[in-house]
């Protein structure tokens, strides 16, 4: 009975979304205040019923209700409770429910934090989101209902959650990634609302910016969590594999990064308007395309759920209507957008344009590389594969160019900057960065590598020019502390995020250049040297967990005869599914990670294992944390909240004027 209640509230949420996707939009176009005002209560209703629905699914997992097919496929009585609850997103149906629930959450956030926006705009934003929400729920009800029952004979026990997913990373990575993904729907809805109302001005950009920043920050964390999880759980020691399902979030992230920069230009200078709108649509399309790729079985990989063309077709229809429709709307409305200002060849506008072009080209090449094998096959019936060499060959040079621009951008002024000023500011920075790039890897790791030099030099380039800018901005003030305090939060946000790029660069460069790994067969008492460390195998013991049995090896690590600690990797056999799984042991550190994955037991107690030394790998994710933190800080700038009443009134009169001319 209870699962049916879940389905029932899903249907209710659908009905409310349909109302939300129609009434407020009609109200906004006819200037009907009562209908526009419906958007907030309807949004709250959608959120509540989606919340009830997902809670009931979690309840079905918690109570081992294996008559529900989705629960029977993804849980088991032996599964620990934290994985039972999170198994909600362990398969296609449930994770789509989570996705939709997240959308409901974002919608509620928009309806609560939009008091300073005119009601017609809020009504349009929520209306667009309501249409999306209705489409997602319809998709669930039609092709992938998480509440489907197994009748008449439910199984006695479930098939268990995929053993690779039974891990802390699984609890946090999917929700964070979805949250970031879905956040771009909000920015998309803002852009569509602006196109619909024909009011693409600085105010629209200012309203969008905090949302874009927050969605971008969460997506950054979501991708970083995925990378970190793949690193320690999947056990191959890599942090990025250009997997066909890793790429769509990256594509969205690249478009999103271009968007948050372009929004700044639109807000501050009133230019690049149509471009910004297009980026908002593209970022959202990236997120939808990501869903399409994961859910349709179009590309097979570790992430792909069961392949089903009907589902793929349904998502393709959603994609066609949402993206095709909005691009058509863009084509109709974009010519009406006028630039309000001019700028010179050397100016911040041009640098941000460069940033946008590089990011969009990067996103497009990742997109092509991901889809090309499929596209090629669709056209010619032949098969090819594209691997990391392609992606690295294109992506790395683009990112190097981007970082070169990145340091110059914040130093530039809007409208025009003199080249003499820039070369005065950056001359010493260039020399210092080159020197640091050569010296630091040599001093710290006593080795030379081009990759390490380039990345450290680029990181120094970012950080030194950032310090220079900070010194400039505070130079002529009476007190430095006061001057620092006076700088706006959005400035700090930007610089923290840029610093994050520097930190990440160091991580990527040094990890790629100076990692060691070795596969060995060790008997108890044997040891092996790797990159200044000695790994001693002390033997193995049997272990038993709640739903698995296995072996645990004990390896003590020392450096220069000083003990560092013990690593205890495990090899497990999950009982319900009979699948083996390896749990690596990591000794994580700020400057290096040591880790061991356990292979097979050979005769006489010897074990095969792979040992890794990964310097500076944590910096990759630390950089992502900096970036996300910067994004959130910038979104907290009081400029976004202090929308004066006067401005609101002006917007309202403009609106009524436009409505009159439109009718």
């Amino acid at each position, binding site marked *: 009975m209870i699962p049916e209640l879940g389905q029932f509230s899903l249907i209710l949420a659908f009905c409310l979304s349909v109302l939300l996707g129609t009434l407020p939009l009609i109200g906004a176009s006819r200037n009907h205040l009562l209908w526009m005002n419906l958007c907030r209560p309807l949004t709250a209703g959608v959120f509540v019923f989606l919340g009830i629905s997902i809670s009931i699914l979690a309840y079905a997992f918690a109570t081992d209700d294996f008559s529900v097919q989705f629960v029977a496929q993804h849980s088991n009585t032996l599964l620990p409770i934290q994985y039972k609850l999170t198994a909600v997103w362990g398969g296609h149906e449930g994770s789509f429910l989570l996705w939709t629930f997240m959308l409901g959450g974002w919608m509620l956030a928009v309806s609560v934090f939009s008091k300073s926006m005119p009601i017609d705009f809020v009504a349009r934003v929520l209306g667009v989101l309501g249409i999306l929400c209705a489409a997602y729920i319809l998709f669930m009800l039609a092709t992938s209902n998480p509440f489907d029952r197994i009748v008449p004979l439910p199984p006695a026990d479930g098939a268990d959650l995929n053993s690779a997913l039974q891990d802390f990373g699984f609890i946090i990575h999917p929700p964070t990634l979805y949250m970031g993904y879905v956040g771009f729907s909000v920015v998309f809805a803002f852009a569509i609302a602006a196109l619909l109302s024909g009011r693409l001005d600085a105010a629209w950009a200012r309203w969008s910016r905090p949302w874009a920043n927050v969605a971008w920050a969460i997506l950054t964390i979501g991708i970083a969590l995925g990378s970190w999880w793949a690193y320690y759980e999947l056990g191959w020691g890599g942090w990025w594999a250009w997997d066909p399902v890793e790429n769509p979030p990256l594509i969205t992230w690249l478009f999103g990064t271009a968007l948050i920069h372009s929004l700044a230009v639109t807000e501050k200078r009133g230019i690049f308007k149509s471009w910004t709108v297009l980026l908002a649509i593209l970022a959202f399309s990236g997120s939808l395309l990501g869903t399409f790729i994961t859910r*349709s079985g179009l590309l097979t990989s570790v992430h792909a759920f069961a392949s089903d063309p009907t589902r793929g077709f349904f998502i393709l229809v959603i994609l*066609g209507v949402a993206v*095709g429709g909005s691009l058509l709307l863009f084509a*109709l409305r*974009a010519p009406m957008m006028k630039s309000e200002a001019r700028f010179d060849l050397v100016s911040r506008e041009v640098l941000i344009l460069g940033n946008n072009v590089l990011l969009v080209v990067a996103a497009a090449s990742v997109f092509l590389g991901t*889809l090309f094998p499929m596209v090629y096959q669709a056209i010619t019936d032949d*098969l090819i*594969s594209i691997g990391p060499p392609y992606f690295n060959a294109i992506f790395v040079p683009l990112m190097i160019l981007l970082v070169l621009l990145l340091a110059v951008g914040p130093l530039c002024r809007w409208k025009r900057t003199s080249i003499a000023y820039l070369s005065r500011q950056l001359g010493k920075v260039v020399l210092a960065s080159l020197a640091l790039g050569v010296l630091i890897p040599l001093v710290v790791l006593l080795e030379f590598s081009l990759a390490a030099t380039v990345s450290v030099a680029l990181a120094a380039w970012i950080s030194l020019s950032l310090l220079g800018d900070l010194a400039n901005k505070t130079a002529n003030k009476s007190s430095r502390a006061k001057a620092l305090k006076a700088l706006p939060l959005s400035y700090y946000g930007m610089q923290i995020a840029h610093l994050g790029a520097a930190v990440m660069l160091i991580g990527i460069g040094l990890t790629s250049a100076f990692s060691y790994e070795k596969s060995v067969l060790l008997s108890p008492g044997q040891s092996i040297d790797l990159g200044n460390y000695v790994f001693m195998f002390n033997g193995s013991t049997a272990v038993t967990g709640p739903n698995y049995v296995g072996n645990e090896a004990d390896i003590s690590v020392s450096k220069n005869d000083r003990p560092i600690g013990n690593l205890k990797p495990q090899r497990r056999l999950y009982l319900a599914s009979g699948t083996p799984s390896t749990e690596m042991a990591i000794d994580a550190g700020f400057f290096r990670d040591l880790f061991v994955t356990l292979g097979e037991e050979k005769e006489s107690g010897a074990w095969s294992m792979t040992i890794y030394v990964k310097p500076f790998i944590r910096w990759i994710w630390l950089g992502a944390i900096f970036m996300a933190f910067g994004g959130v800080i910038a979104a907290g700038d009081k400029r976004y909240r202090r929308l004066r009443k006067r401005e609101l009134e002006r917007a309202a009169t403009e609106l009524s004027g436009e409505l009159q001319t439109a009718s």
Partner: protein
Amino acid sequence: MSKLKYYIPVISFFALALVLWRGLYLDPKELPSMLIDKPMPPFALTTVAGSEVANEDLPDQIFLLNVWGSYCLPCLIEHPTLMRLSEEGDIPVVGVNYRDRQDLAVDWLEDNGNPFAFSILDEDGRFGIDLGVYGAPETYLVDENGVIRFRHVSVLDESVWEEEFVPAIAELRGESFGNE
């Protein structure tokens, strides 16, 4: 004309959607390689054991070309079948060590046994791209003239061997018999 440029995104999107729609109904595993009935692509690489290897080193009889990697768990499932084939010696097996590392590959062969006459080392996967490899494991049947005649994606176990390879090989042998 200047207004037309704003239609470029929507037109390119629908072109893409069309391809995606077509792609939905494709199953990469069912499709033959583009190289079926074409000669092996030229290569000059090293083997996992370290010696140089090129097209002329391939066996001049019907042989299997098996794509494997030390990271590849399904390869362990098909390994006994390959070992049996190599012990029986009726049909040579050549390996392609795909997107792997030499030291890991050597260890893997030591640990699990080596069914291969030799393994072509394809560390960056470029030879795999030429071959149209979808992912390890994959097995190609190549005839005595170095022409690829059959391809199987994923695990080659005993039942696949009996049902797909044995008839394909019988057919090939019949053909060359007929020619002589």
